[in-house]
């Protein structure tokens, strides 16, 4: 139950002493956009007074000297799927806090697909025991895939109703333009429930402009994290959409989109920054939301505006401005001490008034959530996968086949290429010389290992195979291979590992990461995970891969909401028709 904190009022009035006082620094006033000299006092994890604080100091009050430093509100990542970092919740919180990121907005949809809503609750309960904050939005529906693929835990109206009663719940997640256009009643109903309870659906409007944007916004999608160009951002801003500019690992939309501010000079008040998906390589080398701030500054945004885009702007977009996003009375005492603004070098991080990181060292030592045992055994198989499961076949006597190849563009969008592939003993073969690999998705939830196969180009894989059990939106096993026998080894290895990611060449395991929690995450530090990511990547580079983040690109191949092709355990999916398409067109 929320309530007016009487104790905090007492502290503000000087009737009882503050716990902590941060004195001598400047604060970034995100409301007026100014730097100002001010002291801050904290009680019960919240800010009590900003300004003249002498009346709140008692003999027990701990004094933090911030002279020569600037206090910035704790940063917010307003759209992220933290599971994609592959870190268990405790480890994710650790690296986030280290980088001054004290709140995230998420749907925990990847976790929910495998673990179900009751375990989302378990994670949220765990988070409440930490100074970190998750603002939650249950997925608009699970599976997101259209047509639906195999997942163990679907999520619909009933689960949403449960989640809407939670205090952390601020919306529904990925309110997709496709659901609106198709007038999907359960999704529209969920959006309405939110508006009735003064919350909003969190939109998903990729490449949506013109007529379609009218449709999405008229249906109440008033924020979005999927803009690809400055022109698209301008249109969305004009329609009152809160635009979250994304820099994910492997996808940087900020660089182009930020021009609405740096070149077009539009106001930044309805623009925020987010990562959406970030791997541990980026988290450890670049940082988290602090990197977004630095990056925006680097691209020419005024430092205070850059900070606003990771603090008050997202807080306001989510209706949370009384809770987080500023250094003001009543807000959570989430603050970063930085040396100077343009370089944004983090010296200390406070969350809920607790010093959680100092000079790049975490001050917390968190146990992982107490995941129930069944979430540690989520790779279900009643048998082993075989070559027969994976090979696409042509008719008897065929020597070559005409096929559809999904081609990965540098933008991550997928286009269609028509190709001719060799056929041997009825089996259509990949053609690494033409850069054509097999891509397969194997159901790992039901135990039946139903697999679908198609062809893909754009990775440059010349030999071997690699696979992942972390794969939004349905977290079946995606495997890409230049060699089908190696794919069989890779997929079977992931079954043995209880989930993870693996690189196989010449029938043996080259590198692997074990992800035993739901087949998505591991309880290892971000640094350890980053080291493994490097090894995996380098192994793939040695095998001919010529895109920078192959494991990040493979992850998303099952997302049917990305134009124009995707693949699930049910088959190759065309975005426009939302139907399965046989990748084998003909043979001769």
């Amino acid at each position, binding site marked *: 139950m929320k*309530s*007016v904190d009487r104790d905090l009022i007492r502290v503000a009035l000087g009737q009882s002493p503050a716990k902590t006082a941060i004195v001598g620094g400047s604060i970034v006033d995100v409301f007026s*956009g100014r730097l100002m000299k001010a002291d801050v006092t904290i009680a019960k994890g919240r800010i009590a007074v900003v300004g003249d604080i002498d009346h709140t100091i008692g003999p027990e009050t701990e004094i933090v000297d911030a002279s020569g430093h600037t206090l910035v509100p704790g940063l917010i990542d307003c759209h992220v799927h933290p599971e994609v970092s592959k870190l268990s919740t405790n480890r994710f919180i650790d690296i986030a806090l280290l980088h001054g990121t004290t709140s995230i907005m998420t749907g925990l949809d990847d976790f929910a697909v495998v673990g179900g809503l009751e375990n989302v609750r378990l994670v949220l309960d765990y988070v409440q025991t930490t100074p970190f904050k998750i603002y939650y939005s249950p997925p608009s529906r699970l599976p997101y895939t259209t047509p639906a693929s195999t997942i163990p835990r679907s999520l619909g109206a009933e689960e949403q109703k449960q989640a809407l009663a939670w205090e952390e719940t601020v919306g529904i997640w990925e309110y997709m333009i496709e659901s609106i256009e198709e007038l999907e009643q359960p999704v529209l109903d969920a959006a309405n429930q939110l508006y009735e309870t*003064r919350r909003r659906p969190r939109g998903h409007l990729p490449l949506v402009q013109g007529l379609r*944007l009218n449709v999405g916004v008229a249906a109440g999608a008033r924020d979005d994290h999927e803009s690809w160009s400055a022109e698209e951002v301008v249109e969305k801003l004009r*329609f*009152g959409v809160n635009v979250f500019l994304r820099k994910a690992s492997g996808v940087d939309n900020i660089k182009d989109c930020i021009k609405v501010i740096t070149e077009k000079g*539009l*106001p930044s008040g309805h623009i925020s920054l987010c990562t959406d998906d970030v791997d541990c390589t980026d988290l450890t080398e670049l940082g988290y939301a602090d990197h977004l701030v630095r990056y925006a500054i680097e691209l020419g945004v005024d430092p205070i505006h850059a900070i606003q885009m990771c603090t008050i702007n997202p807080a306001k977009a989510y209706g949370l401005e*009384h809770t987080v996003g500023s250094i003001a009375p009543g807000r959570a005492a989430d603050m970063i001490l930085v040396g100077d603004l343009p370089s944004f070098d983090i010296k200390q991080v406070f969350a809920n008034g607790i010093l959680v990181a100092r000079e790049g060292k975490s001050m917390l030592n968190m146990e992982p959530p107490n995941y129930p045992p069944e979430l540690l055994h989520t790779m279900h198989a009643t048998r082993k996968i075989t070559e027969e499961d994976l090979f696409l076949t042509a008719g008897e006597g065929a020597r070559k086949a005409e096929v559809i190849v999904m081609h990965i563009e540098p933008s991550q969008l997928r286009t269609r290429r028509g190709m001719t592939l060799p056929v041997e003993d009825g089996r259509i073969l990949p053609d690494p010389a033409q850069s054509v690999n097999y891509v397969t998705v194997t159901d790992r939830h039901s135990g039946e290992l139903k697999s679908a196969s198609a062809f893909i180009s754009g990775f440059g894989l010349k030999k071997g195979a690699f696979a992942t059990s972390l794969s939004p939106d349905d977290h079946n096993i995606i495997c890409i291979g230049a060699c089908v026998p190696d794919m069989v080894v890779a997929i079977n290895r992931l079954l043995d590992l209880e989930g993870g990611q693996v690189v196989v060449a010449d029938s043996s395991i080259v590198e692997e990461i074990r992800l035993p929690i739901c087949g998505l995450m591991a309880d290892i530090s971000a640094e350890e995970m980053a080291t493994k990511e490097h090894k995996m990547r380098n192994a793939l580079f040695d095998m001919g891969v010529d895109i920078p983040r192959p494991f990040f690109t493979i992850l998303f191949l099952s997302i049917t909401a990305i134009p124009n092709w995707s693949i699930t355990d049910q088959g190759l999916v065309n975005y426009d028709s939302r139907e399965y398409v046989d990748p084998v067109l003909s043979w001769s």
Partner: protein
Amino acid sequence: MFWSSSPLLPDAVLCLGALEGCEDRSLLDQQVSCFRGENLLLLEEQETGGTMAYVDKDLIKVAQGKQPADVLVRGGKLVNVYTREVYLADVAIAKGRIAAIGDVGYCQRDSTEIIDAEGMYLVPGLIDSHIHPEVSKITITRMANAAVPRGTTSIMCALDQIGVVAGMEGMRSVLDEVKNTPLKIFHSCPSRLPYTTPASTIAHRFGPEEHDVAQDWEEAVGIWEFMSTSVVDFDEMVLGAADLALNRRLRLHGHAPVTRGKILSACVAAGMNDDHESYSAEELAEKMSLGVYSLIRRGTHSDNFPECIKAITEMGLPADRIALCTDDLDCMDIVELGLIDYIVRYTIRLGVDPITAIQMGSLHAAEAYGVDHMVGSITPGLIADILLVSDLEEFVVDAVIADGTLVARDRKMLAPIASPSYPEFFKGTVHLNQPITEKDLYLQVEQDAESANILCMHMDLTEGLLNRRRDVVLPVEGGRVLADPAQDALYISVTERHTGDGKTSSAFISGFGLQRGAIATSLSPDDDNIICVGASVDDMVVAINHLAKIGGGQVAVESGKVAADIPLPLCGLMADISAEEMAGQERALNEAAYELGTQLTRPFFFLIFLSITAIPEFAMTDMGLVSHETRAVIDPVLGLNGGQQ
């Protein structure tokens, strides 16, 4: 939360054709028959009765081009309050809401009504971010007829005065009444009624129990007048109501006059969202830095603009957390100046660029109240409240589209909304079992005293409205302290009018300058008892009894006779007459007060606020003279001179 307020305007007939492409023929038949006058009730129920879903399939279909738009506004230059751009854009409207913007020819069919906006700017309907509409003394339908054609299409209010007299049922009745007009009310529940401390006598209290019901109304957006004093005093009535509100994600709309430093921090820590009571740019800047939205006020009695606007024009602070409000307006101001349209003009005149002024009058208010998905901009999904303005600098509202219908031109409703019949409990609300006599009014001291040292309230208008202390020596005759117009020490009395007991308290006031006679009002926030100020106690008796006789109103009395009056028969607060008629009556009443010697141009607009205990430093209720500092009733008689002391 979303509700419909589709007015039953004859103009709607123009759009009727729009339904011809509609799949649901029965609806069409129904509407046609209703305009033949056969089925009015049915339509009313259907169109205004229940909550409508925000996500509306019909709106989506119109945006997709699968169903026709009802109305298309063509050729206008859209003033975008998000990007601050101005560009040519057409607007397609369906079901009173904006379906699509831009190149929207695809939404048009033969049935679509075209509104030609060639050469005009399209500006979002304006929002008054804090107003007590009852203080204008006209019913909400009459207010709608005055406000909407001037461009104010939404108001944020609590209907607290209605609540004092007619309770929740009365508030609900007005909220239902306004649904039949193109005006939108976003409602906040009064933090507590009575607002007065110590509590004075009112007919209906509003406490946590009432909050628990009214906070669930579809119009609810927060609690109203979340007072700094309530925070400092840990007033559990108010903090308890705030707890309920926070759990519903409602906002706490503050009241923090001249509040800074630790008390301001305490209010913000308690959750105060906004405030409409800043008197200087420095005060506003301090509130802004703590995250408080500022609603700068220019009302009939209080103009904070010349000082507060400097936050923008001189300190260079951003305007995105600043909105505009009137708080209280009389009808002379409404008719002669306007509502938020006037403040937009005023803001421009004070050096703010027109687009920023418009943003403050629309989007910023909507954001401060968390209703930017409904009003405050011209974007898809919003209620189609659009002003046609020929010149941004001059900012004259030429025509008004409200709920998607062209309702007004040249500041006149094309078809004013007809008044409903008002409920019986709105009438006969001034209860006095016995007529008031001079005995009830005179301050009585010892028989043989010759004079008395009196703590006289002094209305100080130098910094807004404050009642300061002024000590005077007044003559005593036969134990009665006498008013002394020569030194501007007049009697002030408050007579309780809700229970019939007629409990009356008296004290003295200076600032009105009456040389003779008396003036009185039954509209008097915060408790709406009868306030009377007089140079003559005999005339005060006449004034108070006259108001009881006519069921409430305002009156000026000279030499035992009513010189002018305004009957306010509904709740003793309002009359069912137009703003123009009311303005005429106000002028006549003011003239009568001028005849009594007052130098105040709006004497009644000062009279009505003397019971507000939240205004420093003194107030007057039926309980007596109240000190703002001690929040206690004090004796205005400081000492006596002469006689046997």
